[in-house]
């Protein structure tokens, strides 16, 4: 009888152990802002964004399943003119049980998302303001922070001009990221002996380019710091296109590139030269630097063209790797793991890239440093 009982107990334990385990659903929310005015590129961006998530989920599916997890991705887009939405989505994600929130590109939007997400770990695909770097261990960004990019930009400007070169800053005062970059640049430039001849703040996108050009020319700079987005930057540069000796222009992660889109609005910038720093290399180069990226390149399943796609895949790869390594049972355990090691692996994995502007086009030059 005892033997019978023992036999039945053993058999039932074995049966329980052999029963397929239900995978733990890991909810990852993706929140991104879309520019309301540029609907065509916004639609293309949204399409690529969603396609990249689907591709990553598919390529990582088997591995994740083997580890006992499944990804529950939710994507939310909102109008970029309404930054407050980022906070509201952060609150919503936290309330609905998201383990991780992948935040928007823009630093101010990401900072608001973090306010809403509370204790939930977040990662921005591109945010780069210094404040983002100061958010602590629960939050990270895949872009190098502004001060680091600004330091590299200053060093590069020093390298491309001469000792004691004069520069003028033309900064969009309504762009907090641009203002931060300019400040950080000034600090680094001062250390390098570069001399600031003046600062000309601008507001909005409709600028008086010709008047601005005259003001800049009066200050006779060797280079002009233009840490603004490409539309404004190209408008300023175009005003110098007919000058016999236009100054060198230095960008700050806002100009875009040939793949991402250097918006010139039909303006001619063929004769001006410059360079810009960016937190990301060209997409293909970035993909080649991590396993999932290489798999995407090999599979040729999708031609990725937007830099954020790099970040999305990298975040997904690292999330799956962490889940399989740590096997957290719930999001509290996941948060702990995120804070201890996993966040660090997401910090600026591609370093700072330098792009040249020549004959109206932007081309990758080199990568300078990796990590925060």
């Amino acid at each position, binding site marked *: 009888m005892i033997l019978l009982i023992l036999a039945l107990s053993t058999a039932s334990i074995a049966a329980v152990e052999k029963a397929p385990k239900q995978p733990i659903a890991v909810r990852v929310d993706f929140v991104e802002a879309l520019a309301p005015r540029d609907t065509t590129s916004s639609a293309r961006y949204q399409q690529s964004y969603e396609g990249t998530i689907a591709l990553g989920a598919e390529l990582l599916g088997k591995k994740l399943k083997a580890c006992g997890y499944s990804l529950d991705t939710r994507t939310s887009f909102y109008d970029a*003119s*309404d*930054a*407050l939405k*980022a*906070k509201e989505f952060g609150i919503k994600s936290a309330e609905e049980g998201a383990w991780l929130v992948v935040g928007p590109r823009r630093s*101010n939007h990401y*900072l*608001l998302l973090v*306010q809403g997400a509370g204790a939930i770990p977040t990662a921005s695909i591109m945010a780069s303001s210094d404040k983002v770097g100061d958010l602590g261990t629960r939050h990270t960004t895949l872009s190098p922070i502004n001060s680091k990019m600004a330091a590299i930009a200053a060093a590069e400007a020093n390298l491309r001009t001469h000792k004691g070169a004069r520069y003028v800053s033309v900064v969009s*005062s*309504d*762009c*907090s990221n641009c*203002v931060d970059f300019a400040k950080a640049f000034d600090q680094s430039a001062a250390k390098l002996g570069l001399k600031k001849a003046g600062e000309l*703040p601008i*507001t*909005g996108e409709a600028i008086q380019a010709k008047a601005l050009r005259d003001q800049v020319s009066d200050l006779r700079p060797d280079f002009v710091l233009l840490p603004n987005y490409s539309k404004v930057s190209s408008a300023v540069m175009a005003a110098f296109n007919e000058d016999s000796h236009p100054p060198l222009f230095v960008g700050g992660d806002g100009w875009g590139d040939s793949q991402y889109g250097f918006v010139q609005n039909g303006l001619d910038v063929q004769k001006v030269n410059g360079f810009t720093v960016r937190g990301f290399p060209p997409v293909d180069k970035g993909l080649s630097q991590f396993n999932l990226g290489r798999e995407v390149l090999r599979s040729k399943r999708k031609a990725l063209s937007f830099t954020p796609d790099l970040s999305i895949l990298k975040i997904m790869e690292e999330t799956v790797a962490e889940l399989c390594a740590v096997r957290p049972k719930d999001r509290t355990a996941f948060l702990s793991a995120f804070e201890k090691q996993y966040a660090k692996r997401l910090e600026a994995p591609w370093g700072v890239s330098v792009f040249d502007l020549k004959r109206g086009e932007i081309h990758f030059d080199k990568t300078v440093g990796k990590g925060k």
Partner: protein
Amino acid sequence: MKQRSAKEYLLISWLVPMLCTLVGSAVLAFGLSYLDYSNYRRSELERLADLAPAVGRRIVAELLLGEQGTLRPVVAQLKSEYALQSLEIHSGAPRKLGASISAQWKLPLGNEEKFVAMERESRSYSSFVQFRHFLLALLPSLLMAAVGFFLQRRFLRLHFIEPIEALAETSVGERGADSKWPTEIQSIAKKLAEAFSSREQAVFGQVARGIIHDIRTNLNSMGTATQLVETAKDAEIREARLEKLYSACNRNIPKIKSIVDLSLDSSREISMKAELGDIGETVEQALTTLSEMAVAKGVHLDIDLGGVLFAVHDPVQLERVIVNLVKNGIEATDDGVNGKQVRVALKDISSGVAIEVEDSGLGLADPQSIFRPLKSSKTHGVGLGLFVSKKIVEAHNGTLEPGHSTLLGGAKFTVHLPQEERR
């Protein structure tokens, strides 16, 4: 009061509504402008109210980020982007905003009471008072008025002007009332036709009586003389009666001829044979034929012909006038109380020649009606003498004016012949 034609009255009757249309259009234009202005303000207020949350949320985002440095440029950008006159963030209770287009929105900052107040400059009412509104109101009104004027003109011409013009014809029995005419005008036409008919009959009777009486009297005289010739047996007596018959014929036949001429002249245009001649001679010729009558009636004829006055006139016709006036004067003295006197004076006046005939009779009871045909105070007259005299004088482009004789106390008639006719 100035006399106006029916067309002028018709025009005035349209000018008044036209003026009313202009005033009405102006009032309507102001009304439309105000409506535009109200719609503009309402839509602007609605737009601003719709805008307030978007603006407020952008400000909240900046406040939450603690980006005080960028709040100011963001506010400046929002002001420029949405064409705002002012954009203020304030704490505490909602503010009372100015009269311009404004909106206020409570910022979603949890327990913190903060508001964003926005104001946009409003266009003034005067900028909505535009000439196009006036034209918009005026043009259709004018068009309608023009169409109305055209239709009314046609309508009134057909139903009022033409019937009224035709009344003249109905008043002389040349046509009757038309059933298409307004009933009032038909009634007037009927009354005019009746009056004409009765007057025509009366005139006919009166003329007939007067003429027949005068002709019969003369014929009787000649008839008696003829009978006396027939009954005379003695040759000498017969010879003497034939003389009387001859004399009666000589006297009465011109009278009958005169009665017939007067009757004919009253109903036809005066036939004139004007020539330059001595007026005094013509007057003298007329008085010669009347001197016997004056003597027979015991009337003293006072004649003052002054100097020789020449004028273009028809001596025969003018003589008829003088004869008629003097004869009337002689006959009027029968009833007078100031003695029997008739004065005839010829005067050279600045505007031409004046022939004055005045008597010592009772004078004229109704000077305005004496020229009406068939109007006579005499028992034996047909009442055409003065009517024909006036026609003759007017045919000379002159005037015949009745009046009162201050000298003799009776009637006074003055014939004015114009200077143009003098030599």
